[in-house]
């Protein structure tokens, strides 16, 4: 192989190496390899174009455009660099944005050099938001965070920077510095016991974390114990303080409900009582009305009968016996004074002859022991005149009852005879008969 071939070969070798590193985002490694590649052969357009892409991948667009421009100048024909450049040229907005980003970044550098770290931080945060692949902006921001001791933010920014280029020395240096400062802070704490730590590498980053110790386990046990104690205390508070109050409240509500219900019941009972009284009064009124009605009817009937009897007596169309029966049927209480007067006149006219006929008939029936008929006759006589025949009518009636076995009525009339005709022989006989009846009654009960 001649020298040209050898150089060409070595250029390709480094190009491949650069390509391999670019694929795994080792852009710093890729940049170094590709630079070597074009040092061996400046006409290796692939190496130069890839180098431009590496710069583009790190957010350094203007640098990439420079490399592509040189690539196109060296190898004008069949060069993809022209497509890259045309894409930016065709879009004026893209080129303008790239220019503004570069200007802003340069302004941030100025702020940092003039002591305006706060302004630089603000500006850089905007830059990385608008261009999240601008590596140098992340690194400068990380430096500012480290300078102002905002270590957590610095770590966050450096993580993003490392994703863009895993082997950038500035990024790795800042990460190392962060870890060193973190170790220094934690080892300086006197109350922290010496902890066992586990450190391992994850890619290009060193991870250091403490091992879980028994202290942490004890802490967990204490935590659980505290939780249990808390639950017990809470339950006790509930039982002794809150539940009685709740129960009392419920009991009070219950009592109030009961009282309310009792009041309602009492009210309803009172209402019922009032309604019952009202009903009773209505019934009374109804009874009174009925009585009044009956009385009125009776009065009307009585007067009509009286007039009828009077008419019959005057024209002699009825016998005195029949008229006497009709007079006996009249309710004297329903008659007024005039009516009673007329009634008395009629009875005085009709009763004597009627009594005579009924008494004779009654005596005759008694003699033939037809006591039922005798009772009927003599009852009428006694009703018309209790003293008829000096009480003999009543005495004979008592006897008729006695003979029929109606002891009560017999005693009743015997008693009346003794009372109304006391001192007479008739009364003595009545008394004797009464005593016999009483003795007979006692003897029966004694048996």
């Amino acid at each position, binding site marked *: 192989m001649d020298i040209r071939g050898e150089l060409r070969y070595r250029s390709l070798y480094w190009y491949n190496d650069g390509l391999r590193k670019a694929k795994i985002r080792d852009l710093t490694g890729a940049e170094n390899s590709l630079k070597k590649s074009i*040092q061996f052969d400046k006409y290796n357009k692939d190496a130069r174009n890839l180098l431009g892409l590496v710069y583009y991948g790190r957010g350094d667009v203007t640098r990439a455009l420079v490399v592509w421009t040189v690539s196109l100048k060296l190898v004008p024909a069949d060069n993809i660099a022209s497509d890259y450049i045309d894409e930016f040229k065709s879009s004026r907005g893209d080129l303008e944005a790239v220019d503004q980003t570069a200007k802003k970044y340069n302004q941030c550098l100025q702020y940092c050099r003039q002591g305006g770290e706060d302004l630089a931080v603000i500006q850089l945060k905007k830059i990385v938001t608008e261009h999240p692949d601008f590596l140098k902006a992340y690194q400068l921001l990380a430096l500012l965070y480290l300078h102002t001791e905002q270590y957590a933010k610095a770590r966050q920014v450096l993580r993003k920077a490392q994703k863009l280029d895993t082997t950038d020395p500035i990024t790795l240096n800042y990460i190392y*510095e962060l870890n060193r400062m973190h170790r220094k802070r934690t080892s300086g704490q006197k109350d922290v016991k010496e902890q066992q730590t586990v450190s391992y590498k994850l890619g290009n980053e060193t991870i250091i974390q403490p091992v879980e110790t028994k202290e942490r386990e004890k802490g967990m046990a204490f935590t659980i114990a505290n939780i249990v104690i808390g639950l017990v205390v809470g339950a006790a508070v509930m039982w002794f303080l809150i539940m009685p109050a709740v129960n009392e409240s419920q009991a009070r509500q219950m009592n109030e409900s009961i009282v309310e219900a009792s009041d309602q019941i009492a009210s309803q009972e009172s209402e019922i009582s009032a309604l019952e009284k009202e009903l009773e009064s209505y019934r009374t009124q109804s009874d009174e009305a009925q009585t009044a009605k009956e009385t009125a009817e009776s009065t009307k009937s009585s007067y009509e009968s009286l007039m009828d009897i009077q008419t019959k007596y005057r024209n002699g169309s009825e016998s005195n016996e029949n008229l006497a029966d009709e007079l006996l049927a009249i309710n004297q209480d329903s008659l007024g004074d005039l009516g009673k007067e007329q009634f008395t006149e009629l009875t005085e006219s009709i009763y004597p002859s009627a009594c005579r006929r009924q008494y004779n008939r009654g005596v005759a029936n008694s003699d033939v022991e037809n006591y039922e008929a005798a009772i009927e006759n003599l009852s009428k006589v006694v009703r018309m005149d209790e003293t008829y025949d000096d009480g003999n009518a009543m005495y004979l009636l008592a006897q008729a009852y006695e003979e029929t076995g109606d002891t009560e009525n017999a005693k009743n009339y015997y008693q009346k005879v003794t009372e109304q005709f006391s001192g007479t022989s008739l009364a003595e006989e009545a008394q004797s008969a009464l005593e016999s009846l009483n003795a007979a009654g006692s003897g029966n009960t004694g048996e």
Partner: protein
Amino acid sequence: MLNFEEELKKFQPSLEVDEIEEEALSEDLTDLSDLLKDILETTR
């Protein structure tokens, strides 16, 4: 401990668009073959 000022010096300004052409023209395009040519010519 990082020295802020020293670290800051490592950060170079970014190229602006109107500087691209000038930068491209000033790029050193010498590769090994050019060097060998120079060496050969020098030794003659």
